[in-house]
């Protein structure tokens, strides 16, 4: 890509004409803007960029962009994206989705995508609730949350999933936390994630004002992380385990080599017959 090309896009160039299905006030509007702003800042060409998602409110994102998109099935966005990126390393691949899609039904792919370290970016819009099905607790929901008729009285009693800690221990090469209420900060983190080689994970706190009214308060408690990104997972983990979940910024930048399967030794299909011929 040339420099002149890189300067020629604005966030609008990445937005489609499709009107989102989201509720008024949903954090995902801002995340959509952050993603398109990051693409513009990076100067990515829309037809060389792919946005892949699963199922859920936030997973509606691909159709709201003007990129190549795949709105896949529940929990499988990461693996569809993995296949796409491995077959087409020339494309920029961004995966988007929610906490239920990514950490519950898709949890196994999250672990193995971190391990595999394919060069792509995973943006999870975490609102700690299943919004599309009207308010059930998700893997990141607080153990005692019972404000919805869909949650058991007193809450699930389950320890919330800690996606950043899991990502670190499973081998993700870039781990960050962002807040939807700070679209410029989020855009800048997403751009950095896309630029960083390997599997980049960005957990975006994206309030669900319909089922988690109290998340409106997030804007009053988030703050920038106290220091620059850690370069070892151990240091990042130590910081993470002592913070209160409201430190925003890049937590970890590793130097693992992105996954690249062996390929290309110049034989033809006809050469493969030889081992069977008598």
């Amino acid at each position: 890509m040339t420099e002149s090309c890189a300067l020629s896009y604005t966030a609008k160039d990445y937005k489609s004409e499709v009107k989102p299905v989201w509720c008024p006030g949903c954090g995902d509007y801002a995340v959509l803007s952050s993603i398109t702003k990051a693409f513009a800042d990076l100067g990515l060409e829309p037809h060389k960029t792919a946005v892949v998602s699963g199922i859920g409110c936030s997973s509606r994102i691909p159709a709201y962009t003007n990129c190549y998109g795949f709105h896949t099935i529940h929990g499988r966005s990461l693996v569809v994206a993995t296949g796409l990126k491995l077959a087409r390393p020339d494309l920029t691949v961004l995966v988007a989705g929610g906490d239920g899609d990514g950490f519950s039904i898709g949890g196994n792919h999250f672990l193995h995508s971190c391990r595999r370290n394919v060069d792509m970016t995973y943006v999870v819009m975490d609102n700690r609730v299943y919004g599309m099905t009207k308010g059930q607790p998700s893997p990141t929901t607080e153990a005692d949350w019972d404000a919805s008729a869909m949650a058991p009285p007193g809450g699930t009693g389950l320890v919330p999933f800690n996606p950043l800690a899991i990502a670190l221990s499973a081998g993700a090469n870039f781990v960050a936390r962002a807040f939807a209420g700070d679209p410029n900060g989020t855009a800048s983190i997403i751009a950095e994630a896309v630029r960083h080689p390997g599997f980049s994970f960005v957990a975006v706190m994206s309030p669900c004002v319909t089922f988690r009214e109290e998340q409106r308060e997030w804007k009053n408690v988030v703050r920038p992380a106290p220091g620059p990104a850690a370069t070892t997972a151990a240091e990042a983990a130590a910081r993470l385990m002592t913070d209160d979940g409201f430190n925003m910024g890049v937590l970890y930048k590793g130097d693992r080599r992105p996954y690249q399967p062996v390929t290309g030794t110049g034989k033809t299909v006809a050469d493969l017959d030889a081992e069977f011929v008598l």
Partner: protein
Amino acid sequence: MAGLVRRGPSGVEDMTKSSGATNSVSIAMCGSGGAGVMTAANMLLDAAADAGYFALFGRSSGPQIRGGEAAALVRLSSEPVSSVDDTTEILLAIDWQNVHRFAAELPLDAHSVIITDPTQGDVPEVMAKSGARIVELPMKDLAKEIPGGRPNMIALGAVCHLIGLPVDIVTEVLGKSLKKKRADAYEASVAAVKKGAEAALTMGQTKRLPAIAGDKPKRWTITGNQAAGLGAVRGGITFCAAYPITPATEILEWLTGALPKIGGTFVQAEDELASVNMCIGASYGGAPSLTATSGPGLALMIEALGMSTASETPVVVVDVQRGGPSTGIPTKSEQSDLNIAIYGLHGDAPHLVVAPNSIGDCLFTTQWAVHLAESLQAPCIVLSEQSLGQSRAIIPEPADVAFVGKRLIAQAPAEGEKFKRYALTNTGVSPMPVPGTPGCQYTADGLEHTETGLPSSQSGDHFAQLDKRLRKLTGHEYGDHWATIEGEGDIAVITWGSCTGAAREAVERARADGVAAKLISPRLLSPSRPDAMAKALAGVKKVLVVELSHLAQFHKYLRAEYDLPQTQVLHRAGPLPIRPHEIHSRLLAMGGK
């Protein structure tokens, strides 16, 4: 052998006029882990290959991960072999440890010879009662007389002598595999083979292979799983993601080595959900993609195949069927995934299902599957079977057919024109862009959608897109490949997959007995071809359906999709293969003989 009483696998005696294929010899070699049964059988096959014969080599083993008792089931012939025979001419046991477990897979009769080592215990009662002649061969003691000698090479020598394979061909094969690497082992093996052949001089006559007349035919040696792998790359597959599962693993093993050689990509995924979805992602990116699995894996992949159907993103899934349901019998064959393959997807989801009907056909059918999936932008399930996939065969050289996946590729639209990914074309196939093409950006979606790909829950869009996705499959010209059709007669055997070989042999024998029957073995199971089947059944008055399924899934499928004349069904669960005489005797009865 006319009128011979045979013992069916259930222990029930059944009558047949079948004489067995006159040009073949069936040999079973068995023993415990480490006895070298598979090594000896592979050498036997190599020697037979050198001498110009055709072969089918199946194996059966105990539940152990490595080692344990094993049986090599070899049928050699001067003609191509596509089925196991009714009986076993020679059963050789290096030892009898747990061999009774294979008894049902080793049919014996009064014409069989059982070769046993007197130092390794008695012939199990279940085998001895067949009336087979029992001869003793002290393999262990004879091997001890040679420094480094092994009983399995004594066995190999004896078997080769009995069936008429010259010992020098066997020693030549030994030379190719051992001489350079291990000269001492080579000398010991040659001596043991010669000693075994010598010992067989006093064993009396058994059935011998006919001599090969003229030049040796052009042949390949290949397993069904290797053939499926080769068919995949011939069809244009460049991406495979897969998760190991018995009995499909050899497809992955072969593609792991082959794909990188031709510039393709192989990925071992974390599970079957991942493998099929990675393939769909790669396919969306423009790479023809395939995965291979067995029943449990197919069950996990079904949701993704619905997405492949709805989003019109091609993918090929090879299901090497094993005994089911659930974990079932992983190492043995059955034809019981037909229902899930054809009817397993939720919603109205037309897709392709094809089935190879011989080991060699695993190559063609998988190649054709890639061609169909790519041309029609739909998922294609290839229903192979353990008995095809994991058997090694010497087959006639496969034809080099030109089927290669050809996707209808979208070009960038004219300025100001909106690209319609799911345009309602006459054929139902709409141009599909390769990401990177400017102006063709679209979102592939499992949600119902409009022509441009926008999510829609409107009835009109649903009707139009459902109809488009059906039309592209039913309107395609599949040609003669839809089925293998052989012979003429007013009786037809309709079968599929691995049962086709036994049916072919039975139909030939029935013809020799004056009962004219034809063989119809559909390779294309979905979509069905009512006109082609009606044409194939013109003049047919009776049908015999043959399949390896307890619930007779294939028969029910035929009933649902086709008009059949008066029909009988020969079916049972796997893993015991349906043998030619079972079909033959039914045909004779249907033909009034």
